[in-house]
């Protein structure tokens, strides 16, 4: 029915819905918090509890005997543990080696900035709204300062011993006492209160002014991020927070003439060795963002997005295996052996990449038809048989991937362009895998004490990200296997999922550490980090499988029927129809699983790895200078964990909105 056929007087115009009334603050408080006597009582009790808690927390955080220097001095230790093994005083090469860490951090931040531009993240924010947020933030800061611990002692009406009246007067007295104490702020507390109040008042006045102007002043929300970054940099360069550092051996002469050894503190600003790199990274990131925006407006977003996706995929292995580890490829030495790249890895690339690529190109020809699928099936069987024969581990992995590509050749190759892309994907994947395996097998030339070059927050991130990324395909396969119509897949997947879900993660870790060696053929041994990654991956995959299975069951049967009626193969309908819908539906569960894995990495201390929690819990309280200072460290790492997991949930909300969850 076309729109022109409907007579226009029937259509008319829609009336503008009345704007929802926006109550001013005082009315809002009266209506929502004090509407009835019961509500009023609840509000007062809640306010009392909140005030009590905030006051004690602030008192605890800012108490003069808090050992926060234990955290501040050990920040580098927290982030990268003992990387590299040397220290600034001992090794002139230290700066060069530590620069690897800065390069890693910087490249991730720059990639993030480029991604913000390529995916056009951010929206317009009304200036008035922003300023109201600023006003609220300032008010909160002032309020916290107001509720803080007293700087002057005021004692009123305490110790009155009359029954009933005594305690009552005592409560009134302490309330009055509290108010008087609060009003008599001095020192740092007063400064913070004034700053908070000033921000609140300024925000209020400016928001009133912009509102009256009548224009809809708006700016891009990313300016808030850049502004916050610039403000943080300013604080780093200007604020007199001071410089905490360790002196390993001997002692160092400070600027004020004193000498110091062990844990040292130099008043002034943060060391330029920290603020310098951060400034450089920030400038490069902002410049990259604007350049990317320019590029997107010229050639469109798609090419940049493809390149960025490739870089993000490769970023984790490149940073860990190449930048931080600095593998020594030994290309110029003579001789053979399985670790000599020109002898083995190049040949592996030629055989699997070139010859294998030709095989896959042949298998994807339309006229191969059934023969193509049969050959693919044979190759899968052959690749599984490779696990029984002693050979290099990487041959098994690449062989398995080759079989997977061969099986999919008939389903995923279409016209000539599609076939070229499919073969190109295989060759690219082989190249990447060969290079990565060569890097893993090469010796690292960075000196580290102990088992591994990864520790602290770096280790937590590497473990969490690798486990999450690797557990995805395994979890997907298990979920599809569990809902498959073929009994062998169903049984195997169910056994795996139910077995792993029944064991606590810590048990899985210990099991892998002690017993896996006995199960593996030959003299294959894994280092602790690999063991932790394998354990985390297999553990997370079981939970992921169940999450995805929930999504699979949410797909209406009609989708399968329509796909089958059109002649799509099982593989095609799974990839094109089922998985996109199922994964969209379970994004909240997947993000929850990611957060859980991120926190579960704290259990790897059990196999001797120095992760973020272990450092706070055991290592720092054992340092002679900071003996027994545990609570401050725990509070610090809790805040850091919370910061990351909260960002994950916020990002997930954005992702859900972007894929249109709940819209169809």
């Amino acid at each position: 029915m076309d729109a022109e056929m409907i007579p226009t007087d029937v259509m008319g115009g829609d009336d503008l819905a009345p704007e929802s009334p926006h109550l001013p603050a005082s009315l809002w408080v009266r209506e929502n918090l004090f509407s009835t006597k019961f509500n009023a009582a609840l509000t007062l009790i809640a306010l009392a509890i909140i005030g009590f808690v905030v006051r004690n927390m602030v008192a605890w955080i800012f108490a003069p005997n808090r050992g926060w220097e234990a955290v501040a001095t050990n920040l580098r230790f927290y982030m990268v543990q003992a990387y590299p093994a040397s220290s600034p005083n001992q090794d002139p090469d230290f700066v060069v080696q530590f620069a690897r860490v800065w390069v890693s951090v910087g490249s991730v931040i720059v990639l993030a900035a480029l991604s913000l531009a390529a995916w056009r993240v951010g929206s317009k924010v009304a200036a008035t709204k922003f300023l109201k947020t600023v006003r609220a933030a300032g008010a909160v800061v002032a309020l916290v300062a107001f509720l803080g611990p007293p700087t002057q002692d005021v004692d009123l009406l305490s110790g009155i011993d009359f029954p009933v009246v005594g305690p009552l007067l005592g409560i009134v007295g302490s309330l009055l006492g509290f108010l008087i104490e609060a009003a008599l702020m001095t020192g740092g507390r007063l400064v913070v209160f004034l700053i908070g109040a000033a921000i609140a008042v300024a925000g209020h006045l400016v928001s009133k002014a912009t509102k009256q102007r009548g224009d809809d002043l708006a700016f891009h929300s990313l300016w808030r991020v850049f502004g916050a970054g610039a403000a943080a940099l300013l604080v780093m360069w200007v604020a007199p927070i001071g410089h905490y550092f360790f002196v390993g051996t001997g002692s160092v002469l400070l600027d004020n003439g004193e000498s110091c050894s062990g844990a040292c503190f130099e008043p002034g600003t943060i060391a330029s060795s920290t603020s310098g790199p951060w400034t450089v990274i920030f400038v490069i990131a902002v410049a990259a963002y604007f350049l990317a925006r320019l590029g997107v407006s010229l050639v469109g977003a798609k090419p940049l997005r493809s390149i960025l996706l490739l870089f993000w995929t490769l970023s984790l292995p490149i940073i860990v295996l190449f930048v931080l580890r600095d593998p020594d490829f030994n290309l110029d030495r003579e001789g053979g052996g399985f670790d000599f790249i020109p002898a083995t890895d190049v040949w592996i690339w030629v055989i699997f990449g070139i010859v294998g690529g030709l095989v896959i190109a042949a298998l994807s020809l339309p006229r191969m038809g059934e023969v193509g699928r049969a050959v693919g099936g044979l190759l899968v069987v052959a690749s599984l048989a490779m696990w029984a024969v002693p050979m290099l581990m990487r041959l098994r992995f690449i062989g398995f991937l080759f079989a997977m590509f061969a099986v999919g050749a008939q389903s995923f190759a279409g016209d000539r362009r599609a076939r070229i892309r499919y073969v190109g994907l295989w060759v690219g994947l082989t190249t990447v895998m060969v290079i990565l395996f060569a890097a893993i097998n090469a010796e690292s030339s960075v000196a580290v004490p102990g088992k591994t070059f990864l520790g602290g927050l770096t280790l937590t991130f590497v473990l969490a990200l690798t486990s999450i990324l690797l557990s995805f395909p395994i979890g997907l396969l298990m979920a599809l296997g569990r809902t498959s119509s073929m009994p062998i897949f169903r049984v195997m997947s169910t056994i795996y999922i139910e077995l792993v879900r029944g064991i606590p993660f810590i048990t899985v870790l210990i099991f892998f550490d002690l017993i896996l060696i006995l199960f593996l053929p030959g003299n294959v041994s894994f280092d602790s980090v690999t063991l932790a990654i394998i354990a985390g991956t297999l553990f997370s995959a079981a939970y992921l499988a169940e999450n995805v299975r929930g999504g699979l069951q949410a797909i209406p049967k009609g989708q399968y029927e329509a796909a089958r009626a059109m002649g799509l193969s099982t593989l095609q309908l799974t990839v094109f129809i089922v998985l996109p819908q199922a994964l969209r539906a379970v994004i909240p569960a997947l993000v929850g699983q990611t957060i859980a894995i991120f926190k579960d990495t704290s259990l790897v201390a059990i196999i001797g790895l120095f992760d973020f929690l272990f450092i706070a819990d055991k290592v720092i309280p054992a340092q002679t200078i900071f003996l027994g200072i545990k609570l401050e460290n725990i509070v610090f790492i809790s805040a850091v964990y919370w910061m990351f997991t909260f960002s994950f949930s916020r990002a997930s909300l954005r992702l859900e909105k972007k894929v249109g969850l709940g819209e169809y």
Partner: protein
Amino acid sequence: MNDKRDIIVCEGVKKWFGDFQALKGITTSVKEQEVVVVIGPSGSGKSTFIRTLNRLEVHQEGTIIIDGIELSNDLKNIEKIRSEVGMVFQQFNLFPHLTVMQNITLAPIWVRKKPKAEAEDDAMKLLERVGIPEQAEKFPGQLSGGQQQRVAIARSLAMEPKIMLFDEPTSALDPEMIKEVLDVMKELALSGMTMIVVTHEMGFAKEVADRVLFFDYGLVVEEGTPEHFFTSPEHDRTKLFLSQIL
């Protein structure tokens, strides 16, 4: 009509769901370019019957031969038959995460291996044929029911089938939209497509059908031309059914 060969031949087709027998021996044949309308009360097995024709349901006894290929457990046969038989469902079953254009071109690109540009050209021609070329980049959720069903018809036609099966295509639509879908189906019939339509739309049957089959309790009770069927039905059961719906 007599020199057209039989494109669908069913002999004694029986199907059970557990203990319940849904089809009790269907013997019928459909000639090329014939339009067969299947009517009957709910639960009579008419949907089950046409779903056995493209193996969405599996028949336990009897033979079904479509375009010379026997429908059996042989996967190759099933694939060949499915590429020649298109189906339109009551619930549309469009893929909600793909645009209309992607819905239509998915199977031609990945099953028939057509190049993308050619598939999109053909898809636009089909969208014009069903009357909604401007909706190509929209998502199914943004379309009305009648538009969605027309997209579903275009999607089936994209695979260039020889036979089109319609399982109550207008039962889930508002009365205002039924006409637009029936118009498309009429045009399809007049252009020479072999169609089997399960429907309650008697007007459509009278206008377009070459033959009407009346199903009840898993059997074909009566079959005949629309004139014969609606003016002088033979069986009492048919008379009872027609008296209730006309």
